[in-house]
């Protein structure tokens, strides 16, 4: 029993060290666990595959440095697939860091012979979030007179084929939330509802659950959540990247956290059990006259909010 009580009060730094080891060891010595393709990723891949060759797509880089590891690998994996279909890419960003991420991810297109201004463009950053995206959707040139590299946007060949959101065969947002930028709800409203342009999302793990409703309703044609989805997408496109490399560490870390949860709960039950003695139960029965010292009997403790029976 002692050991569980001790475990309950273990120094939090022990957990930090275990967590660090769970990530570090598989990073240095990868196990190479096979990655299965899940339905949401396959559906997204199939949807992108069904887009007309040579059409234009719009990609929003709506994330900050903190989520780069989740979303940049998704962008690169998608770009490989789009390039294999000669689809033209227009990138824009609602976060200040977005254009630089776009510039870095768009580099993968060079191996396919893509030319800047003809096959892809990085329009850069726009301020104002959803209303500005709405204005862009109605008339892209009204928001961007110059692109991220300083070119006159109206003179770029790729932008001559685009007069509104309707001209994109697909829109995609790589999104880590609406704080300071354009969130996924905003993209659904402005791309799908206002212009009928199909939308797919690359989101952080945090946002996967809440955006699943859009997938089920058909308002979003596909969702890729975090590094795991990137790894699966890399497998589908045959281009191994950052996502695949990180999956072993992800596995061990998840197992460790589940083990923490299980251990914590076993500890709670084991430590709590002896306190529910028959004597104390009878003492707490209504109408019982048995004396019980306040504080000495755990069952007399006030129930904490969210505790038993709530």
């Amino acid at each position, binding site marked *: 029993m002692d050991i569980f009580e001790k475990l309950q009060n273990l120094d939090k730094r022990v957990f930090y060290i275990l*967590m660090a080891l769970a990530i570090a060891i598989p990073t240095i010595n990868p196990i190479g666990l096979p990655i*299965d393709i899940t339905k949401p990723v396959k559906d997204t891949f199939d949807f992108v595959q069904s887009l007309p060759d040579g059409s234009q797509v719009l990609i929003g880089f709506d994330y900050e440095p903190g989520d780069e590891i989740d979303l940049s690998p998704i962008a690169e994996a998608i770009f490989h697939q789009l390039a294999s279909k000669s689809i033209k890419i227009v990138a824009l960003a609602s976060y200040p860091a977005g254009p630089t991420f776009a510039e870095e991810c768009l580099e993968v297109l060079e191996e396919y012979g893509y030319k800047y201004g003809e096959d892809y463009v990085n329009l850069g950053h726009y301020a104002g979030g959803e209303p500005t995206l709405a204005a862009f959707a109605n008339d892209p040139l009204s928001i961007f007179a110059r692109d991220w590299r300083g070119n006159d946007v109206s003179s770029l060949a790729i932008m001559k084929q685009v007069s509104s959101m309707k001209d994109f065969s697909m829109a995609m947002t790589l999104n880590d939330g609406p704080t300071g930028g354009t969130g996924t709800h905003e993209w659904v409203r402005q791309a799908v509802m206002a212009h009928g342009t199909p939308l797919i999302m690359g989101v952080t793990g945090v946002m996967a659950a809440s955006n699943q409703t859009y997938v089920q309703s058909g308002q979003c044609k596909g969702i890729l959540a975090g590094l795991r989805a990137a790894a699966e997408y890399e497998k589908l496109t045959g281009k191994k990247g950052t996502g695949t490399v990180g999956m072993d560490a992800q596995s061990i870390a998840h197992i460790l956290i*589940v083990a923490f949860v299980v251990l914590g709960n076993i500890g709670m039950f084991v430590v709590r059990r002896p306190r529910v003695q028959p004597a104390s139960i009878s003492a707490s029965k209504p109408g019982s006259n048995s004396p019980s010292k306040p504080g000495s009997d755990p069952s007399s403790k006030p129930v904490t909010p969210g505790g038993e029976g709530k």
Partner: protein
Amino acid sequence: MFAKKTLPTIIAFVCGVTVVIAYFFNIPFIQARAQDILKWQSVIAVFALGLGAVNIIRIHVNNVQRSQNRNLYSLALLLTFAITILVGVFAGQNSDAYKFIFDYINVPTGSAIFSLLAFYIGTAAYRAFRAKNAEAAILLLTGCIVMLGRVPLGAKILPVSVPLTNWIMSVLNVGGQRGVMIAGAIGFIAVSLRIIVGLERRSYGGE
């Protein structure tokens, strides 16, 4: 009084109503004005970007002055701020120097700060994630299944976790999240309406 109280209310009302009408009705004149409003708001919003920077400078310049140049943290912040701006403006945002700051200071530090939560979640999972009642047990169970079902090793240990994760995500999760989304949207629309008709003047600095 008119300029301080009534004018902002009129501006919010006109802007809000125009963009709503332009969306639902095909009236070219209104749609053109709505597009003008959207474009103008994008220009005004650019100026809002600088507010955060001004606030940071004010606070840290104050810190430095009060400590008579001994607040090294604030000095470092101001120095980095100034260097980044100088590099971005004079060398350009596609220059190697700008990318250096972005790739080797901003991204590593930003994602390290974000990833601290992975460690905190680890301890929280052990100390606080307890099945004390039915709600907590459901939360814990679905959380653990999803954690296992999302990784290759989890699928090896508990193969059923993969189809279960897919089912939780596309059925149970959708049922719960959709209620939250609809309820949130109703509240959101109510607040938006209050802003447009001038009942929520505090949102733009009024009383």
